[in-house]
């Protein structure tokens, strides 16, 4: 079987090379062209933040601004109260330092379970261009937290809002870490239009996406 895959490999590569006569230097010189980056890449920090908020809200995310990370537990409790969301919650191991008990939250720390009502995670970046959140998987930020609960609450630092997708990749490469198993760009809550093109939220992923925007310069 392995031998057959090897044989298929050479067969496909040979077919591709023959078809294109890839030996010719002209073909190899074809450049992928200039990168076209949307104008929002040029925005300053406050412009990026304003655009991010507009785009995320348009995608049906909700946003609450707080002045510091210490306020997260209380902001989470307020949100759950407003939405009348009861039940178990789970936080990303990355975020386990905060005094959740003081805010009256009963939560565990770890990866997502089917029974979780809500999850709380951080984010690697916010993307102004589309209002997307960029989340990286890792021991402190399991991917299941982003998909299994009914509500996904994401804490994002205003300083981590970048202009475009390209900015996320350059920030990631600046970290000089290996590409994580999963990079999620998440824009608003899960939805489907597969039944008569009517929009329904909470298809397979969270029905609610709530962003706690931590803006220390406010």
């Amino acid at each position: 079987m392995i031998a057959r895959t090897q044989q298929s490999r050479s067969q496909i590569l040979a077919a591709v090379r023959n078809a294109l006569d890839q030996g010719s230097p002209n073909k190899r010189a074809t450049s992928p062209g200039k990168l076209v980056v949307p104008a929002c890449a040029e925005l300053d920090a406050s412009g990026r933040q304003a655009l991010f908020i507009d785009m995320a809200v348009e995608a049906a995310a909700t946003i609450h601004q707080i002045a510091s990370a210490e306020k997260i537990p209380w902001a989470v409790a307020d949100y759950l109260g407003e939405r009348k969301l009861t039940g178990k919650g789970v936080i990303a191991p990355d975020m386990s330092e905060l005094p959740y008990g003081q805010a009256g939250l009963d939560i565990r720390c770890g990866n997502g379970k089917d029974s979780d009502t809500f999850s709380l995670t951080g984010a690697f970046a916010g993307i102004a261009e589309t209002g997307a959140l960029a989340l990286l998987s890792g021991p402190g930020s399991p991917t299941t937290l982003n998909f299994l609960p009914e509500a996904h609450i994401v804490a994002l630092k205003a300083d981590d809002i970048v202009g475009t997708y390209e900015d996320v990749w350059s920030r990631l490469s600046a970290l000089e870490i290996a590409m994580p198993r999963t990079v999620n760009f998440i824009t608003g809550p899960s939805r489907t239009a597969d039944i008569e093109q009517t929009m329904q939220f909470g298809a397979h992923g969270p029905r609610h996406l709530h962003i706690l925007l931590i803006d220390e310069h406010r």
Partner: protein
Amino acid sequence: MTEVGAYSAESRNGFNARVERALADDQLQHALKRLGSGFVEKRARAVARFPEFERLRDAATSIKNHVLANLADYLEKFESKVTETGGQVHWCVDAEAARNTVLRICREADARLVTKGKSMIAEEIGLNAHLTAHGIEPVETDLGEYIIQLAGETPSHIIAPAVHKSREQVTALFHSAHGTKPRHAPEDLVREAKAVLRRKFLDADVGITGANMLVAETGSAVIVTNEGNGDLTQTLPRVHIVLASIEKIVPTLNDSATILRVLTRSATGQETTVYTTFATGPRRPDDLDGPEAFHVVLLDNGRSALLGGEFHDILRCIRCGACLGHCPIYATIGGHAYGSVYSGPMGAVLTPALWGVENARDLPHASTSCGRCESICPVRIPLPGLMRHWRERSFSRRIDPRRQRAALRLWAWFAARPRIYRVATGLAARTLKLLAGRRGSFTRLPLVGGWTDGRDMPAPEGGTFHRQWHRRLEQ
């Protein structure tokens, strides 16, 4: 000849019969009417608010051209990155090889239950039937795909597979499959499907997704979804299999951003979908979740034979489905009439390439040559021109029906003799006008009964085109 996958020989020909059935199918016509210009308007709105869009189409086109011109190098680079991150690439020449590779991986994982994200390649190779026949249960998790799996059908649209199904049909399908009481509101139907499929996600041994792109720079597979089903499919089971064809490669993460920008706007008119996910290798040693194994099944299935030839440009296709939504033929007959998983203009070009034009000779004719598809294609594929290439090829290979060939030869004889052509068309125009009389049209004409069955043929009103054109030049 290339494998036909899930499709019987019967489905390959008989386009006209399927079209007639589609036109007579009130429920389908109702669904197509409901679809209406929805996709067209959403795309137009998204494009209008994004001034860079036309330049991005050029950029996306040149990225794909560059990839195709260097495809072998990028495939090797992609493979080495996948291997480096702990995954495995499986090269498959045709549909049969791909089906068997997936089956082997499932067996090695002792899999009984397989969840699937939306994958056109899985449809192309007829994967579900193959797994089922070997005792493995495949469950589609994209809501549209799940609906058509319950109905035992194939997708009728690349990005909206159950677009032909009514709410009442979904109610009936869920009622009989789940044994629950009939639910009618879309939100209740979605909730019911979510509960049923959540169990499947948690119990599945293997998750199979497609890929909107494969990134050579990092060995990542990219999926673009709104439901989140693809993410649960590739995160929860022990094994993640990506099914992708060889032309899905992009060189870098930055290139993927360009493709994403044109893909989502062209497909659903969204700035971006809810979830865009880059999966790279299996879970890392300290990760708390994610699959233990990562496989990429790379399918050729006739694509390398298109490289560098007349149909090279169709390999740029990013499967956004915009050409379906903008096609008057698709809007009239729906996707199933094409008889292939790929419908609309891109399907009319790609299907003959996969099956051989002798098995799909009518599809390149499923066009009014209006050019709308080409005008909106995010990677500027000259679709009407490629359909014309197929028509030429099927004429020169004597594949078309004899009467059609005879008619074309007759026309060609006249067309090559301008003077005779002018006299003959002038005579024909006058005769038809005379015969039509006051009514000005024909309800039946010999030889073109197929045309006049559905509508009246208007009679020429004055001189020929040539004559009118000359008059205009003289003025």
